[in-house]
């Protein structure tokens, strides 16, 4: 404030000094006999531009550059504030472009580009057993693992861990027993990954070899149970009923065998160890390998293929087995996910390109519009450097505003993505705003703003004022052509995006529209782990059934596990082997009586299971799905037919009799077609309890937990989820893709259309005279409207055609992301192209109307 007032007074003094001089001069001329008017004129001539003299005096002050720069920025901001619409549009366009790009790049970097948090992660591979006939991946037997390790030369090390789908364990937490995912890992596991513990240490060779009761905790569990205190080290935790000593905590970034793993124990703690290592016909383990120095993944694949062939020849149980070597990265992230994210990134880049073309167009147009103003100021004595400085200050203001807002937008988008998910993307929770992306976006924005905004200004400030005024209405043909090309390019990019979005959306809606076959709303699924009583499910059914709001209770082996039919089935009296000699394979689920009622699936033929079917003395019965009944007994009733699991008729003649046929369903995920399913009545030690409720499902969860604990106090706190929530989570990645690309497409289209609108409006202004003459010569208004609308549509159609070509080029990448939708789906292409052209036609309408309203008289008057 002080500085400001001092500047103000200094300014007043300078003013007074110069005025004093002028007045003395004026008096002198009066004395010489001039009229006052003449005297004033002479003073003006002699004194020259007053402002210029002032300016030079100001330049002499200390810190003057700071002051003038401040003034330039203020001038710039004021000029921007005067053209609020322009400023707002440019800033908004750049903000959206920059923000979306940073957000999407952060996702790309967080999920795909960021290296896995292990030592030399590119050297680590997953070795999986591949069942060739079924084209299925499976666990590996101990004996096969030993042979792989002994015979291969490509790997500097291999590590074993217990197959994850079988690795759950109960530990005694502060709030009672909890069931978590555990990693039972071999001696080489942590060394091979080269990942140190967050605190404490990983297992010693001795602990691993002897199978001592030691445990590593995940960072999350450590914080929940021990408040993140170092005291946890050395304390004991009861795992699987045995006290284990805590030796260390693994950091959050360590996500092997699975991201959900909460505790790690030595593999030697598993049952039947080390006998498991000599089992040949088994699937208990999964294997990691580290490639040796200078060994490529293809070398390793070739070598392992040879070893697998040898093992097929040597051991009969291996005859169907091969080995697949996958880089760990592909295993963790998945090729489809990477492709999807790259697609999203490509989309956002085209959006950014559109935004830049658009903002650049606006900036350049404004610079041209201001040629007059700038030339005038130059003629009045403003130095070139000051003019350029003011323009640069204006552009810098836009740049800083847009970049800052863009970063904030990106942060908000990312937060929305991570928090409100569910996207189902791996590693997304650790994806942060990426500094590189921010830097690149800032730099990119700077280039666009400076090149488009300042270069024309520079050229103008150099130009001769008289020349500028003479060629006022320039309409430089090169610039016009560039503008048209830019508009067409924007339309092309927008069309490609729109087509991709329509395809993804259609695919998403198709998945969404798939009927799971059961009402997923109001269905709760509770994981029940080793209850004390073998009749727990029947008791729970009684007890929960008494709760108001609970309609039916049942149980099934594993509700959410994806299966692809792994049980060979022999059907009485028929050979159903296909051409390759393969027997049909079913999914065989164990369910309790009450399951179908709780699921809300109809038993369309025969009868449902009843409690007496569970008795050991009861005859074996089975319910098959409608798909099974149609395929194996078309045109007749399946009820009363007999089948058995396995590859041969039962030696003891104990067939299972089909007592009912149930509706097909997509139980675990919507985009997996119904499989050949069969159900047998059983109560297992671990099952998912299915609870059909009426009304508010979430509200009942505490009551259900309470009742189950009351029934069995040793029962681990069951996790309870609602089925429809889980189903919609599973379409999360598809929804994310469709929404992200859809949003990009809408924004891109809006930008492109705005660009077209601006270009046409500009042309109308340029061609005022021509239009006026046409009108004067009797051209009807509609003809003029048609002229401009046609022009807009021609540009758009040209762009859209290129855009469709771009979408066709993308089709191969896209196809793998689509569900029951062809990547060259004519309907989708038509929808997208029509949308683009339609919106463009609407945008062309207003400038065209404007043109048709031009009054020939006023045109001629203005010249």
């Amino acid at each position, binding site marked *: 404030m002080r500085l400001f007032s001092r500047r103000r007074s200094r300014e007043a*003094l300078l003013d*007074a*000094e*110069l005025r*004093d*001089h002028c*007045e*003395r*001069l004026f*008096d002198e001329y009066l004395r010489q006999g001039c009229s006052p008017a003449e005297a004033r004129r002479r003073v003006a001539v*002699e*004194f*020259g*531009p007053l402002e*210029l*003299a002032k300016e*030079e*005096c100001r*330049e*002499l*002050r200390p810190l003057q550059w700071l002051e003038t720069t401040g003034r330039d920025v203020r001038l710039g901001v004021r000029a921007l504030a005067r053209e609020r619409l322009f400023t707002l549009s440019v800033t908004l366009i750049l903000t959206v472009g920059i923000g979306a790009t940073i957000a999407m790049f952060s996702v790309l970097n967080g999920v795909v580009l960021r290296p896995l948090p292990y030592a030399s992660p590119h050297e680590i591979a997953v070795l999986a057993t591949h069942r060739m006939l079924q084209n299925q991946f499976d666990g590996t037997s101990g004996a096969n693992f030993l042979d792989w390790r002994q015979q291969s030369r490509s790997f500097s090390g291999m590590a074993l861990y217990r197959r994850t789908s079988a690795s759950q364990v109960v530990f005694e937490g502060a709030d009672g027993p909890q069931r978590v995912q555990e990693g039972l890992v071999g001696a080489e596991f942590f060394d091979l990954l080269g990942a140190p513990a967050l605190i404490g240490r990983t297992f010693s060779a001795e602990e691993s070899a002897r199978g001592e009761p030691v445990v590593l905790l995940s960072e999350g569990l450590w914080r929940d149970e021990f408040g993140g205190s170092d005291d946890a080290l050395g304390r004991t935790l009861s795992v699987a009923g045995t006290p284990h000593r805590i030796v260390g905590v693994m950091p959050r970034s360590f996500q092997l065998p699975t991201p959900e793993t909460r505790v790690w124990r030595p593999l030697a703690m598993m049952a039947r160890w080390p006998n498991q290592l000599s089992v040949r016909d088994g699937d208990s383990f999964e294997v990691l390998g580290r490639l040796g120095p200078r060994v490529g993944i293809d070398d390793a694949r070739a070598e392992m293929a040879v070893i697998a062939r040898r093992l097929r020849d040597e051991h009969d149980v291996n005859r169907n087995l091969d080995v697949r070597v996958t880089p760990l990265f592909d295993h963790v992230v998945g090729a489809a996910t990477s492709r999807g994210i790259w697609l999203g990134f490509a989309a956002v880049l085209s959006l950014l390109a559109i935004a830049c073309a658009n903002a650049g167009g606006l900036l350049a147009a404004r610079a041209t519009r201001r040629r007059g103003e700038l030339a005038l100021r130059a003629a009045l004595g403003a*130095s070139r*450097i000051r003019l350029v400085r003011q323009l640069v200050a204006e552009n810098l203001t836009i740049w800083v505003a847009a970049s800052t807002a863009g970063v904030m937008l990106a942060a908000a988008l990312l937060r929305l993505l991570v928090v409100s998910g569910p996207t189902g993307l791996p590693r997304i929770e650790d994806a942060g705003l990426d500094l590189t992306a921010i830097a690149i976006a800032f730099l990119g924005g700077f280039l666009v703003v400076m090149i488009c905004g300042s270069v024309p200004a520079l050229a103008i400030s150099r130009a001769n004022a008289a020349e500028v005024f003479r060629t006022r209405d320039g309409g430089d043909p090169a610039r016009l052509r560039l503008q048209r090309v830019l508009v067409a390019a924007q339309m092309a990019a927008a069309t490609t995006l729109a087509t991709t979005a329509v395809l993804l959306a259609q695919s998403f809606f198709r998945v969404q529209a798939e009927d799971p076959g059961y009402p997923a709303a109001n269905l709760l699924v509770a994981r029940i782990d080793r209850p004390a009583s073998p009749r727990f499910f029947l008791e729970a059914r009684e007890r929960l059934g008494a709760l108001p709001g609970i309609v039916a209770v049942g149980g099934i082996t594993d509700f959410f596990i994806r299966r692809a039919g792994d049980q060979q089935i022999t059907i009485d009296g028929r050979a159903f082997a296909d051409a390759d000699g393969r027997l049909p394979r079913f999914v065989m689920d164990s369910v309790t009586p009450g399951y179908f009622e709780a699921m809300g699936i109809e038993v369309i033929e025969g009868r449902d299971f009843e409690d007496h079917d569970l008795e050991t003395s009861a005859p074996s019965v089975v319910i098959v799905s409608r798909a099974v009944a149609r395929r194996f007994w078309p045109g007749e009733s399946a009820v009363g037919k007999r089948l058995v699991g396995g590859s041969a008729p039962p030696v003891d003649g104990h067939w299972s009799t089909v007592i009912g046929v149930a509706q097909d369903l997509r139980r675990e995920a919507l985009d997996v077609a119904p499989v050949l399913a069969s159900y047998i009545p059983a109560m297992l030690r671990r099952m998912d309890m299915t609870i059909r409720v009426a009304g508010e499902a979430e509200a009942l969860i505490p009551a259900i937990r309470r009742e189950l604990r009351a029934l069995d106090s040793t029962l681990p706190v069951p996790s309870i989820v609602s089925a429809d929530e889980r189903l919609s989570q599973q379409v999360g990645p598809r929804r994310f893709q469709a929404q992200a690309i859809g949003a990009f497409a809408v924004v891109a289209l809006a930008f492109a259309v705005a660009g077209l609108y601006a270009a046409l409006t500009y042309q109308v202004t340029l061609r005022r005279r021509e239009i006026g003459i046409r009108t004067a010569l009797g051209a009807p208004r509609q003809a003029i409207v048609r002229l401009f609308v046609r022009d807009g549509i021609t540009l758009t159609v040209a762009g859209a055609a290129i855009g469709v070509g771009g979408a066709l080029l993308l089709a191969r990448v896209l196809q793998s992301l689509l569900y029951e939708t062809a990547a060259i789906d004519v309907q989708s292409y038509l929808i997208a192209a029509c949308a683009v052209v339609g919106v463009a036609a609407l945008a062309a309408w207003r400038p065209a109307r404007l043109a048709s309203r031009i009054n020939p008289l006023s045109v001629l008057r203005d010249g």
Partner: protein
Amino acid sequence: MTEKSDLPQGTLDLLILTAVANEPQHGYAIAQRLRQMSREVIQVRQGSLYPALHRLERRGLLAPEWRASETGRDAKYYRLTKAGRAQLDTDRDSWRRLIKAISVVLKSAEADAP
């Protein structure tokens, strides 16, 4: 950016210092004096005068004084400071030496001419 004066580089400063050597003057009077002293040969454009005055003020060779003038308005008078007087002496000497040297050169050039 600088308005080019018709005077050789650096001479305007010397002339201004000379004009205020005897008593403090305001800008208008300095311009008048320079014109009179040079018998109308030297015309200083106001566009150059004031920047030069302010420059000399910043270098501490002139000191500003605001006082009432004969017009009844306050006017800014410039007074030669001690540093200004020293500068004036050095400049005057070097200027004289320069003139002498140049006239010697010119004379000998005339003598050499056939």
